[in-house]
Structure formats: C-alpha cells, structure tokens
C-alpha cells in the first residue's frame, strides 16, 4: 500500500502535526510526502529528512502559496491515481483541504483518526469525545485526517528521501489570499507545548487574564490556552481556545485555572499526561479529571504560585 501525506508548513518550516501524520501514515504503507507551496525547495528538503518518508513530491508554483484549498486539492487529487491512501493532519490546514480532496476522488473521509486497527479500520472520537467510534471504510482508496496528539511524532531528521517535482496544476481563479493576522508567537504553540496554562471565565477580564497567566506561563515556558467561555467573553483570542471546537492538546502538564470543566473543554485536553486544576468551587467537574487539584481563589493563588516557581 502506498500513502500520500500532505505536509503542513508555513513557508519556513514544517509543522509538528505533519510528523504525527507521518507516523500514522506509516501504519498503512510506504509514505510519500506532498509539499505544495511557492518556493518550497527548502521545505521539500526538510520533508526528505523526516524519518519514514520514502519520497517527497514537490508542487511548486505561485498559486500554491497560502495553502488555498481550491488550488492544492486538485493537485493532490490527481496524484491520488497512484496512491491507496491520503493522509493529512487534523489541523485547520488539513481539515480545510482533505475533504475537498476526498470529494474530488469520491471517497468518504475518515476525520480526526486517533487509532488505526488495519488498512481500512480506524478509530475516531464522535460527540465531542463522549464516544469513540470504530469505522471500517469500504472505499477502495482512503482519505483520513489524523489527530496529532494521538500518534508519536516521527523524527524530523534521519531520512534522506529523493525529491521529485510534480505538476503544480493551475490557479482556480476563484479564491485569493488577502491577509493573515498571526497571533503572537513568542510562546510555544499550544498543540506542541510540553506545558500549558489555561484560563477560564473566572479571570473576569482580558487584563487580568494576561496579567496573571502570562507571567506564570513565562516561568514555566508554557503555552497559554483558554476555555471557550473565556474566549467568548473576549479575554483571550480565538486561537487560544482548547476544546471540541478549538484545539485538541495533550501536553505533559495541563494547568487549568478558573475553568469549571465543561464537556466541550474536557474533550480538548483530557488526554494530557497530568492535569492540574485550580478552582474556587470544589465541586467543579474539572476536579473529576484532575490529577492534582487546589481549591481556592485564583487571584491569590496564581501570583503566589508564580512567585514561588
């Protein structure tokens, strides 16, 4: 079986979620990596070094810049003539493009895969992770997106795959990139951070959210996350959101502060290795999943904790 994986990159480096997708794809067969973009020679070289990648296909053209699904999906769909499976990371990048590829080749996608039983049988969460479904695909080719936290990352070094140029297709002429308002990236990214400190609505304001959580995150070298309630209240930007409809994370340590633990939120962080919860309500559902809990007022506890670290 041969597998085509779609490499996620930002023009400068390959995103970590790709490495987990390589591991998942490796369970299905020989892995070839598609690097699509504009001036992607260095990205293609980096992809060639990923352990487990047997070949890199580089589709290089100005219209493939900015990952427009309208332009990338046909390139991938055409290449699928020669492959049995298409794998993309289940990030906003992969979620945007993979279903478009699937429909072009008339395949029902298996989304957000967390386990692979055999070449057609996949495990995936449904109902916000409240149930786990095992599904068997009868399509002759498979299209799957892979949840990064569920698979180990392939080593970024060690491979030496050949790089082959492939047809970059044409611009659809129907979509264009306008702008990217990138969030502050001083801290580690949520989906790859070892430690995450996450805040909820209990912070009361955007000022207090940042004044209390940022110094703590700096001390721990942690990424900062937020509950949906905190994001909806405007305390934190949308890409901080951890949960069913936000980011799915599984760090070594997840510190939930002032977060009650709605199902929605738990779905996004319950695979963390160790969960620490700080909340003034000792009945808060977050304590039912926390390994270490501290009941108390976050406005007292967080500064004290930051000071003592």
């Amino acid at each position: 079986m041969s597998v085509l994986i779609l490499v996620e990159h930002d023009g400068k480096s390959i995103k970590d979620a790709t490495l987990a997708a390589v591991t998942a794809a490796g369970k299905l067969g020989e892995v070839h990596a598609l690097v699509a973009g504009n001036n992607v020679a260095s990205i293609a070289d980096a992809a060639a070094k990923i352990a487990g990648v047997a070949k890199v296909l580089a589709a290089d053209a100005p219209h493939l810049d900015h990952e427009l699904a309208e332009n990338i999906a046909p390139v991938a769909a055409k290449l699928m003539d020669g492959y049995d499976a298409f794998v993309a990371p289940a990030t906003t990048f992969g979620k945007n493009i993979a279903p478009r590829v699937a429909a072009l080749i008339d395949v029902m996608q298996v989304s957000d895969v967390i386990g692979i039983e055999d070449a057609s049988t996949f495990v995936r969460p449904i109902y916000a992770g409240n149930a786990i479904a095992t599904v068997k695909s009868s399509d002759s080719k498979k299209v799957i997106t892979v949840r990064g936290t569920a698979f180990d990352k392939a080593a970024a070094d060690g491979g030496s795959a050949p790089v082959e140029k492939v047809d970059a297709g044409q611009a659809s002429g129907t979509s264009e990139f306008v702008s990217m308002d990138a969030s502050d990236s001083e801290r580690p990214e949520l989906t790859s951070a070892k430690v995450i400190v996450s805040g909820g609505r209990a912070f009361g304001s955007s000022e207090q959210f940042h004044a209390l959580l940022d110094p703590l995150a700096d001390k721990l070298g942690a990424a900062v996350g937020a509950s949906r309630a905190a994001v909806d209240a405007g305390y934190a930007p949308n890409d901080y959101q951890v949960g069913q409809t936000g980011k799915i994370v599984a760090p070594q340590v997840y510190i939930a502060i002032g977060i009650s633990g709605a199902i929605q939120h738990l779905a996004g962080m319950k695979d963390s290795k160790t969960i620490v919860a700080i909340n003034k309500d000792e009945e808060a559902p977050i304590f039912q999943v926390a390994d270490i809990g501290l009941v108390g007022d976050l406005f007292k506890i967080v500064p004290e904790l930051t000071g003592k670290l």
Partner: protein
Amino acid sequence: MKILVAVKRVIDFNVKPRVKMDGSGVDLANVKMSMNPFDEIAVEEAIRLKEKGVATEIVAVSIGPAKAQETLRTALAMGADRAILVQTDEEVEPLAVAKILAKIAEEEQPGLFILGKQAIDDDNNATGQMLAALLGWPQGTFASKVEAANDNVTVTREVDGGLETVKLKLPAVVTTDLRLNEPRYASLPNIMKAKSKPLAAKSPADYGVDIARRLELVRVTEPPKRQAGIKVSSVDELVERLKGLGIAK
C-alpha cells in the same frame, strides 16, 4: 442573491451523550434534539445578509428523518423564507449529503451556500468542503467574519495560527465557526408565521444520489475514563508537586 443554508437535527448540545450498552451507537431515544449549533450560526448569518440587503431569499435545507421538519421550522421562524426537507431515515454521510446539496444548488442557483463547520454528533467537519469540491466553487471555512458584495465574498477564517482572510468569487461555500455571530431566538409571532411558510418534501432518490454508507460502524465505546487524583491544600504543596513532575525548579 439567493442564499442556501444547510441545517442538521442533532442531539442538543447541553445533553451528555450516552453510549448504548451493546456498542451499536449513541442512545438518542427520548433525548432532546435541536438544530446543530453551527448551523444556527449559518442561518443567522444568512438572515443578517438579507437584512443588509445583500441577500434576497434564504432557503433552508435539511437531510434527515421526518422530524427534521422541526429543525427547518426553527430556521423558518428565525427568518428563512422557505425550506426543503430531503427525507430519509438512513444516516447519511457527509459525502452523500454534499452530493444531494450540490444537486439542490444546481437547481436553486444560490450566490452563497452557508453551512456549519461541523455537526456536533459525528464531528466530521467535511460537508462544506466536499460540497465546494463537487460544485467547483471556492470555500471559506471556519468563518468568523463574512462580508458579501456583488460578485465576491470576503471571509475571515479562524485558523490555527490566527485569523486568515480570503476573497472568494461567487458563488461560494462558507462554513461557520462559533464567533461569527450570536443566533437570535425566534419570537412567538415568527414561530406562528413559520408554520405557513413553504416546506418542500423530497427524497434522496429525487436527486439520484446513492446514500449507501461507505463507512461501516464497527462499534462505539465509552472513552477511557480519567480517575480523579489528589487535592493539595496549599500553593507550597502544589509547587512541590510541579517540581516532582519536572516542570519547575
């Protein structure tokens, strides 16, 4: 411009789903069902575009059991003008849903097709993208802002690294994220009025679409449960524990 909106009847988002004992699925008997929250946002966005004078007619479409009529009536009560129910008791996968919606789009010729980014039952996040692919239309997924003009729509998308803005030629597909808007509640007079708005009943066969499942459900299980851990009584104790985890010095 006409706008099509797809809505799905799903378990109410406040209900905790229970896995059936025999592992055949999630128990939906006697469970409160509602419109998928992302689809409510899609309906609301269509109504706002009509209120701004950009849209002239809103058609809500649902594919599902007879009871999905209630979901469509909700969309009509919010402000959609008419509805189409493609009735089936089968569970229809996103690819087949997209095929039916594509046929309806060919008949109705909308300028925009707005859908929720995912349904909160099967969490596939695929139908909108598949629909766009089948129609050869551009897609603005995970939208947090939509500005439509004569022949194009500018969509701000919630992506992992921040907010991305793309400009799409119409006709286009847009899928909604949570922060696009806050859906209105239907008023009682509007709920009454919705009862007399047109609702067309169709079947998948009317569109010549094969809805046979491609994914066989092997089993559904409960997720592994986490055990509650210990409670510490002071920040000092917490600091010791964090040191023990190797994340603090």
